[in-house]
Each structure stands twice: as C-alpha cells, then as structure tokens.
C-alpha cells in the first residue's frame, strides 16, 4: 500500500487538522445541525436545561439541588460531552477533506485548448470547461478534466493520482480511452471529449461523502440510528419515571443528578462516534484510492457473496509467457528456436515479446536480427495465424493448433502424433500451445503459460473465509481455465467468456439472492457493471464503464475489490462494536449512580455501591466524566476501524463480544473508580 499517499498519510493527525476540527466542533453546536444526531441532541437539551438551572441557582440558592458548584460541574461536563462528539465528527471530516484536497490539488485550474466548432482553438481555463467540450492536449500539458480520448494515442503520467511512476498508454477507441484530470501527457497529442460537468466529477462526489453535512446515511446506519433513538427514548422513560419514584420514597432527586443519569445511560459513545465511523470508512476507501459514488456502495461491498475477477492482471501476472520450445519432425532445437523468434519479430503482443525473450536467453544474437530482411505475415481475424517470410523463401507460421494443423494437412503433410500429444499435455497443464509450421510442415510447438501471482491463493482463501465466492473470468478454453482456477484456488470460472457471459452469470447469481461484485474497464463491461451490486471500474477504463459502476479504482488494480470488501465489513463491525461497548458501559454507570441517588434516605443501598465511591456527588460526577472522556478516547478506534479478521462469523462474533461486550462492562468500573479517586484527591467534591 506504500504507493497510496503515504506522504500525506503520516500528516493526517497534524496540529492543523486538530485546530480546524476544534473550530468545527463549536460550529456544529447549532441545534439545527445537532438535531441530525438525536442522541447527542438530547444531551444538548439537557445541557441547556442545566445552564438555566445554574442561572436560577446563582440567583436563588437551593441546597436540595446540590449546590451551584456541583451543578456547574455537571453542566460543563455535559457541554464537553457534546463538544467531544462534535470533535469526533469534525476530525473525521477534516481528515477526509485533507485526503480529498490532496487529490483535488492535482486538478487546479489549468489552461485548456478548446476546439471550437469551426476547428479553431481557443484558450480557456479548465474551470470553464463543460461536458461535451472537445480539447486538444499536447506533450507536456496537464489534462484539465476527466474525459475520453476521441483521437490519438499518448503516454500519460498518472502518478499524481495513482502514485505509480510508470507512464501508461491511453488511446482512442479501445477500452483504455479514459483520462483523468490532473494527469500529465508525456508524449504525443490527443483530442479529449470532456465527460463531466464541473463539480460532478467522482472526486467531487467522494468529497461529499466525507463531509458530514451533505453525507447520505447508509441503510445500516439508518437502522442503527433508529435503534439508538429507541434506546434514548427507553432511558428517557427510565429517568423521567424515577422522579416520582424518588418522591414516593421520600428521596427527592436533584435535577442535575437525573440529567446526569440520563446522559450516562443513553448511548452517547456510539451516538457521538457514529458519524465519524461512517466518514472514516469513506476515507479509508479514498486512501485505498477507490472513489465510491455512495456510502451505500462501500457498505454493500461488505455483504458481497460472489466476486467476478478477470483472470489477466488479477490472478495471473499480465499475460501468458512462452516457457518452452518443442522442436519436432527432425527440426534442430536451435534452428526451431530461431524460427520461433523470427516469426515473432514484429509481434507487439505480450506473447510475441515473451517468445523473443525466451529465445534470447539461449541465442542472444537474435536481438541483432535485421528486420528489413523479413516479410512479416500479420495476424488477422481471417487467417488466425502470424509469421514471417524470410529472404530465402522460408515461410514460418504459428497459431492455434487447429489452424496450423489445417495448414499442414492442406499442404499434404502429416500432422505428427507427437505434436498432438504435446499440444494435449500443454493444454492439460494449463498452458496454451502455439503450433508452428515451417514451409507447411509441422515444425514444433511453443508452450505459453500463465504465471499465477504469488500470494493470490492466500487472498482467495481469505475471501472464502469471509464467505465470498470467487469467479474467474477468462477468454481461455475450458481446459486451461480449469487448470488456472484450481491452481489459484478460485471457486468457479467462466471460460471462453464473452461480455454477455459475465452479465448472465451475475443475473443467475442475483436470482438466487446473492450480491455480486465485479470489476471492469471496457465499454462492453458497462451493462454488467451496472447490473452488479458493486461495480468497480478502472480509472483507465472507458467513460461508459465508469458511469455504469458505483466505484472507480484510481490504481487500476484488479485485486482492489478485496480491499473494498474488507473496508465495507470493517465499517459495520466498528459500528457494532462501539454500540455494544456503549450499552455494556451502562452496567457500571448504574452501580455508580443509582446508589448515589438514594443512599442518603435508603442507607441499605450503600451495598450496591460496589465500587465504593467516596460520595454520592463524586460518584455521579465520575460517571459523567467517564462518559464524556470515553468519546475522545475511542476516536482513534473510530477512525482506524476495528480490525477485521476473516475467521468465520461465529469466531469473529465471539472475539468482538469478548473485547467490546465484556470489556465494555469491566472498563468503566475501573475507570470510574479511578476518576473518583482523582476527584477525591484533588478535593473537588
């Protein structure tokens, strides 16, 4: 992950950010803003009541309310509780914005050459560009906005976005025609069609997701908010009814103590951190260089049942490589290797290059071959073979076995059994055989093989433990596909895949109720990307693909989906864990506050004071102070997220219940006692 903004990552908790967040925390005190968070809003209402009470007490002292000093302390702590919660949200926002800013910096206002209708060129600023404009970008210029190349080919430095220093090639017409604003053209000239309105770029959308105010709550977050509101109402009932209970028991309860009990019982910890957790989740996605179009998409990623992955680039490194030459029919091994290399001389495909590379290992002189002496026979869809005609008239042809064997038979030559068996063996071992004929005579076979990425088996094992089924999509024949699928450890494969096969597979999975994710870049991937529940398009992909998916991966890294799934899960786990912790805390708070409320008139209840807190007022203060302090203490957890381990649902639940449930019961007992000791030592109460 080193390439992902490691430079900005270290600065994410700088003094600057904290200062901005502090300022924001006060701004967010506005009730109109607070009301978005019902739990914390009730705390604000409680604080306002306490401020009013303090003013009344300052004017006409009333000892039954516990003295002005005690009331002031409670008021201040309640106020701090709200401030801490607001701070948690602001710091998450500030971090997210800083992350987004560093991306946005790459797209500062740059000049653009707008091509007018009459063909003339007009210089304007990138901020004036509209969707549908066509611009010309030359060597050394910054691409002013996201768009699609409609003419030309260029090498582009995308390091500003992806952090990857190697330049990439983008060209019109193919599946790699997308360009991103802020990247730089290193060579050549391209015409680009601007594909977005200003303010609508994916980045702008992402920035909205890390801003609390404009952020849309995700479905699970909405459900959790409802649950938390329910808890708040429940504890409101508990506290309000306690007042007449107290009067019946001839123990009037001070208003400050009732409000303190209420604030301690309602889930302020999760209420205060909920928004920060959501923002931090989006921020983590952004840090992984994934731009999500909605928070829902990231959350859905955590629920994915089936993952469609392209073989090339995901499971295997790049493309197939030549790994062995088999000379046949009396051809000398060395001569055969030479023929193979020559036939690939002008072959720009990765396979072709790899043949020369392999040949070059034993015959370095190959590289010195003069290509002008050769007549290149190009691969076409009709002939389905490529090769070379040499000066001496020798014709070398290579291609798929069925094509070459037809050529040989048409030439009246026999297809040797050894060739058939070698071809069969290669295919069975997951390789791709290329048959070679020289002057219409069987000459040998080139073995091409896929190199499976190291460590990919572990990633698939991890996915399987998460409950995600992986499906490999490949254009290979079923035999090869099966071999690679087994070697890599994917659960299923689609061989000889046509674009519509992906679509059909997704629909089939969805019909059985599964959620499907896929990654794609081409225009013909667009329908499938749109159909999938989570569609990640590559940034280098076509605009159609980017529009169809709900996430864009800036790194163009096909294994990114695995990270996105984990980010989605982490988001839910963090919310669940902090909720559990928050509610579990109530046990200790009860044992602090309930005896404190009644112990003066019901001495027997002193036995419930199991923490042996020094005085009723100190007990209540300690509980409220703990309740306030736990929010900033958990901010790092909220921002980082609870670690996700794919160990199966039951084990994961047991682990989290143990840490956050049991821990949530024990921690406050210790902390409240400690705060009580400190308060007593300081002589506050």
């Amino acid at each position: 992950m080193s390439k992902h903004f490691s430079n900005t990552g270290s600065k994410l908790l700088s003094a600057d950010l904290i200062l901005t967040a502090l300022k924001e925390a006060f701004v967010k005190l506005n009730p109109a803003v607070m009301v978005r968070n019902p739990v914390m809003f009730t705390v604000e209402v409680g604080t306002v009541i306490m401020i009013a009470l303090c003013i009344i007490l300052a004017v006409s002292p009333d000892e039954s309310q516990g003295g002005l000093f005690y009331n002031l302390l409670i008021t201040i702590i309640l106020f701090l509780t709200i401030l801490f919660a607001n701070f948690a949200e602001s710091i998450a926002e500030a971090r997210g914005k800083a992350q987004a800013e560093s991306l946005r910096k790459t797209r500062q206002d740059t000049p653009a050459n707008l091509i007018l209708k009459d063909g003339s060129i007009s210089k304007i600023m990138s901020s004036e560009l509209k969707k549908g404009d066509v611009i010309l970008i030359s060597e050394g210029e910054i691409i002013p906005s996201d768009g699609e190349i409609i003419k030309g080919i260029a090498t582009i430095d995308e390091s500003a976005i992806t952090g990857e220093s190697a330049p990439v090639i983008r060209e019109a017409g193919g599946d790699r025609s997308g360009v991103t604003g802020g990247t730089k053209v290193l060579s050549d000239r391209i015409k680009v069609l601007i594909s977005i309105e200003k303010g609508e770029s994916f980045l702008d959308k992402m920035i909205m997701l890390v801003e609390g105010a404009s952020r849309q709550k995700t479905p699970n977050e909405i459900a959790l908010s409802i649950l938390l509101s329910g808890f708040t109402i429940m504890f409101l009932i508990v506290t309000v009814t306690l007042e007449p209970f107290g009067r019946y028991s001839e123990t009037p309860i001070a208003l400050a103590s009732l409000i303190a009990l209420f604030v301690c019982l309602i889930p302020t910890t999760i209420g205060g951190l909920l928004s920060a957790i959501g923002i931090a989740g989006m921020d983590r996605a952004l840090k992984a260089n994934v731009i999500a179009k909605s928070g829902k998409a990231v959350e859905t990623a955590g629920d994915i049942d089936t993952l469609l992955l392209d073989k090339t680039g995901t499971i295997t490194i790049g493309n197939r490589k030549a790994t062995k030459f088999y000379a046949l029919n009396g051809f000398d091994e060395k001569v055969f290797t030479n023929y193979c290399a020559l036939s690939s001389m002008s072959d720009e495909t990765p396979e072709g290059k790899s043949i020369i590379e392999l040949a070059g290992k034993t015959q370095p002189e190959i590289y010195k071959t003069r290509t002008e002496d050769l007549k290149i026979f190009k691969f076409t869809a009709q002939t389905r073979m490529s090769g070379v005609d040499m000066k001496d008239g020798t014709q070398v042809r290579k291609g798929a076995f069925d094509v070459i064997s037809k050529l040989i038979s048409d030439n009246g030559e026999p297809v040797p059994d050894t060739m058939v068996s070698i071809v069969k063996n290669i295919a069975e071992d997951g390789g791709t055989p290329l048959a070679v004929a020289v002057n219409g005579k069987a000459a040998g076979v080139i073995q091409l093989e896929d190199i499976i990425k190291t460590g990919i088996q572990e990633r698939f094992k991890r996915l399987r433990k998460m409950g995600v089924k992986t499906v490999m999509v490949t254009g290979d024949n079923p035999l090869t596909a099966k071999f690679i699928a087994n070697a890599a450890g994917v659960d299923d494969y689609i061989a000889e895949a046509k674009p519509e096969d992906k679509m059909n597979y997704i629909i089939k999975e969805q019909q059985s109720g599964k959620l499907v994710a896929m990654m794609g870049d081409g225009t013909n991937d667009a329908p499938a990307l749109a159909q999938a529940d989570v569609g990640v398009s590559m940034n280098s992909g076509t605009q159609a693909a980017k529009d169809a998916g709900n996430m864009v991966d800036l790194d163009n890294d096909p294994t990114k989906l695995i990270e996105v799934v984990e980010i989605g899960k982490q988001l839910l786990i963090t919310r669940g864990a902090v909720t559990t912790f928050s509610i579990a805390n109530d046990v200790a708070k009860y044992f602090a506050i309930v005896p404190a409320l009644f112990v003066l008139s019901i001495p027997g209840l002193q036995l419930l004071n199991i923490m042996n807190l020094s005085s009723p007022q100190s007990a209540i203060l300690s509980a409220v102070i703990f309740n306030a302090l736990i929010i900033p203490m958990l901010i790092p957890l909220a921002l980082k997220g609870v670690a996700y381990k794919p160990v199966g649902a039951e084990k994961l639940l047991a682990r989290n219940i143990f840490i956050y449930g049991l821990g949530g019961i024990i921690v406050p007992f210790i902390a409240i006692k400690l705060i009580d000791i400190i308060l007593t030592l300081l002589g506050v109460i």
Partner: protein
Amino acid sequence: MNTEILSPVLIIVVTFIIAVPLGKYIAKVFKGEKTFLDFFAPLENFIFRIAGTDPQKEMDWKENIKALLTINFLWFLWAIVILAFQNLLFMNPDNIIAMEPTQAFNTAVSFMTNTNLQHYSGETGASYLIQLIVFCFLQFVSAGTGIAAAALVFKALSNRSGSNLGNFYNLMLKSCTRILLPLAVIVALILIFNGTPVTFQGAEQVITLQGDTVSVARGPVAPMVAIKQLGTNGGGFFGPNSAHPFENPNYITNFTELASILIIPVAMIFALGYYLNRRKFSVMILSVMLLGFICLAASSIYFEMNGNPEIEKLGISQPLGNMEGKEVRFGPSLSALWGIATTSTSNGSVNSMHDSSTPISNLMQMLGMQLNAFFGGVGVGFINMFVFIILAVFISGLMVGRTPELFGKKIEAKEIKIAIIVALIHPLIILSGTALASHIWAASADPAVSLKWLNNPSFHGFSEMLYEFTSSGANNGSGMEGLSDNTPFWNIAAGIVMLVGRFIPIIGPVAIAGFISAKKFTPESAGSLKPDSVIFGVVLFSVILILGALLFFPGLALGPVSEYFSIMK
C-alpha cells in the same frame, strides 16, 4: 438429593420430555398435516360455516392482524356485557351481584388479553355462568389467539418469499380444538381424580369440627383450572387461586398444574424447530430460556428455603424456610418454583401468597414478567423472544461485518423500528403506570387515609405497585395482593396497560414477520452468522438481560432490593 430440590428438577425434566412430542404434534397442526385428532374437522368446519369464513383463505400479515383484532373486540364486548348484567342472568345460585363498571372493564380486558388479573374474587364476584361462558371460554380463545399469532410468525419464517402467513381464524380455532382442548381434558381428569370438584350446585353449608357453620364455595372448578394452567391464563375459580385446596388438592395436582404452566410455552419452541426444520435453532432458544429460568428459580428457591431474616431475628427457627403465605402441602421450594414459573410464563396463577415471599423472590418474579421471554405466555412467549432475536441479530450482524440477516432475510431499518417500539412499549407502560401511582400517592396529603391502596407503604408498597403494573403490562395477572386494587384508578389504569401490553407486542412482531416473509432470500455463506450457534445464544441472552434489567433496575432498586437490604441479617 433433597426432595425440596429434587421435585423442581423433576418437574422441569418431565415437562421437557413431554414437550418434545407435543412440539412435533403442534408443528403438524400448524402445517395442516394429518393428526390423530382429525375427527374434530367436521366440528371445526361447522363453526367456520356458521361464522362464514373460509379457513383456507390465504392472508397477509395485515389481514391476519385485522382478523385478530376484530374477533378480540367481539369477545371483549361479549364479556363486558355479561359481566355487567350477571345478576339478571341464570346459573347464579349464590345470587352474585353485577360488577361495577370499571371492574367489569378491567375483568373483560383482563380475560381477553390472557392476563386474568382478578380484581374480584371468583367465589363471590362471578356466577357459574360467567365462570363458564366468559372466563373459561376466554381462557381458551385468548390462549388460542396467542398460539395462532405465533403460528403466523412460524409461517413467515419458513417462507422463502411471498406474503401469505396463513389464516388466523383457522390457526386460532385449531389451536383451541387440537392443542388446548385435548390437553385440558387430560389435566382436568387428573384433577378430578384427585378431588377437584365439578358441580353446578351453589355453595355448601358445612358444620366444622368446632361446630361453626361455614359456607364452602364450589362449582365447575376442574375444567377451569386445567385451561387456566395450560393456556398461561392464570385466572382462578376461587380468589386464592391454586393455593385453594379445591383448585389444587395435593402434590400430584400441584405437579400436574406446575408442569401445565410450562408445557405449551416449551412445546411451542420445539414446534418451531420441527416447523422450520431447524431443530438446533429451537435448542438454542430453549437453552437461553432455560438458563434464564433457572437463574430466577434458583435464587427464589434459595431465599424461600432460607426463611425470613426478620423472623430469625425474633429467635424463631424456620426449619422449613419462609412459610408465611405458603400452603403446608407444597412448602417453600415448590411454592418458589411456581412463583417463577407463573411469572416468567405470563400465567399468573399462584399457589402461595406472593406478597409474603422474600424480597429477592419478589425481585425474581418481577424480573420474570419484565423480561417476559423465559418461556413466556403460550405463543406470545415465542413472539416476545422473536423481537429480542431480531435485535440480537442486528447487533451481532454488525459485529461480523454483514448486513444483519435472519434465515437469509435482511433485517433493515423498518424491522428495527418496529422491534424497538415493541421493546420500549413494555417499560413505558409499566414504568409510567407505576410513576403515575407513585406520584398520586406522594402528592396526596394523607394517602393512607385518602387512597388506602397500600397496607404496607415504604419499599414493599412500592414493590406492590410496580408488581401490579408489571403483571398487567406482561399480561401475567398475578398480584402481590397487598395492594387494594379494586378501585376505579387501578381498574382503568391496569386495564389500559393490559390492552397496550397485549396487542402492540402481537401486532409489531407479526408485522416484522410479514415484512421478512416478503423479502428477498439470500443463501447463507461462511460469512453469515448462524442463529443457532452458541455465541448467538450468548448475545441473545445479553440483549434480553440488558433490555430488561437495565430498564427496570432503578425501579427494582427502590422496591425489592431496598427491602432486602433493609431486612438483611
């Protein structure tokens, strides 16, 4: 082993052994499969024909709830009219006078809602006609309503898709004829053979050994006792309920009646396992229920057997334990077990005076009603548990990083909203009722004279008020009885609490079930949490404890807990 300990264990074991085949049978009844009681079919069809309903009509959750509410409203009208005019009607050999309107309201609501809070005494407040066509009848159909509501949820959970939850009328009637009636016949026969009377003659004049003439109340007791125990009703024929020697003559009847309290609530969970073909799931639920039940029962038995510290302070030895308010033929252990069984199942019958239990027993009895899910009432026990399951699924779903799901159906905002409303209605009605009573008491100048509710103010009086609202809210119906509750305030307040406490917790979960039924099904994967796992049971148990205990803790602290600390050795 000590027989005081052995008896409770034996009762629970026997109950579970009978509950397994019974559960299997109940599942068959719900599914409409063939059973050996199919000879009831003509009778059932006759009733359907008269009522003009089609028992095979498929209904969604809304139609079923509409049916449930309609028929319950009719029963309410039926009950209140007859109660208010019982003096004008026949079968009233002891010339019992008509009920006062608020008491009639309270009683009608009480029996319709399966609560059977009795603000009257059976032998002096209700004629034989009332006992049979109102009380006995409602004890059958209100139990049938609960069982049928649970069957709707069963169906919803078994549906892969679609909104058909079955037919409430069909399920309700079959619950009565196929489940409650045969069991009631068996239990009634056992009671009759052990001396419980069945007669339509009025009270008998008897000359005692001391030569006094006393009037001994009697009547058609056995059938009413059978259904009151089986249907988690609890409304006794006589005021003292199953402490009365005619309702509960001996050890055998006590054993039978205690087992009858638990049998259907336990069997319903086994039925769930057979119905859904998820036996492990029902074992998980039963384990949670049994664990909670044992915690409550063990505490209560321990404290009852240890006697009353105040009496000990007087220097009186209590070899049998706390015998105040208990029947000598049952003793403290079986009385304590009954106290917990009757409160945690929403039954409400008693075989001892709960007002005289030790404070910790009162605490456990109230917790049993406040949690209301450790077995719970017939049908509604599972329904309450279902709400807790939904909440537990949600919390634990988040913690494993998947959108929470139950049996492949996602649990989302709409379901959580209903579940939390149902969960908070329970403390709302109990606590606000008690708060209102506390306020009236605290605000009145001389409550002991002007209000006269409480004979023991202080903590015990608070417990009595909290108990009364808890019992009404949980549709339990038992009382601590120290409270003079036959006043317009208590009749109306408890009546409202019973209505809300009955129907919201039925409508809500059935609605959730309806939503879940119609949702898209997602097959389970390695990442999804299995709701039959041990760890899910732990979460479920914690959710019940936290929702229950945390909400009622301050109230309980001021009542039984304070009382306990004040009389401790």
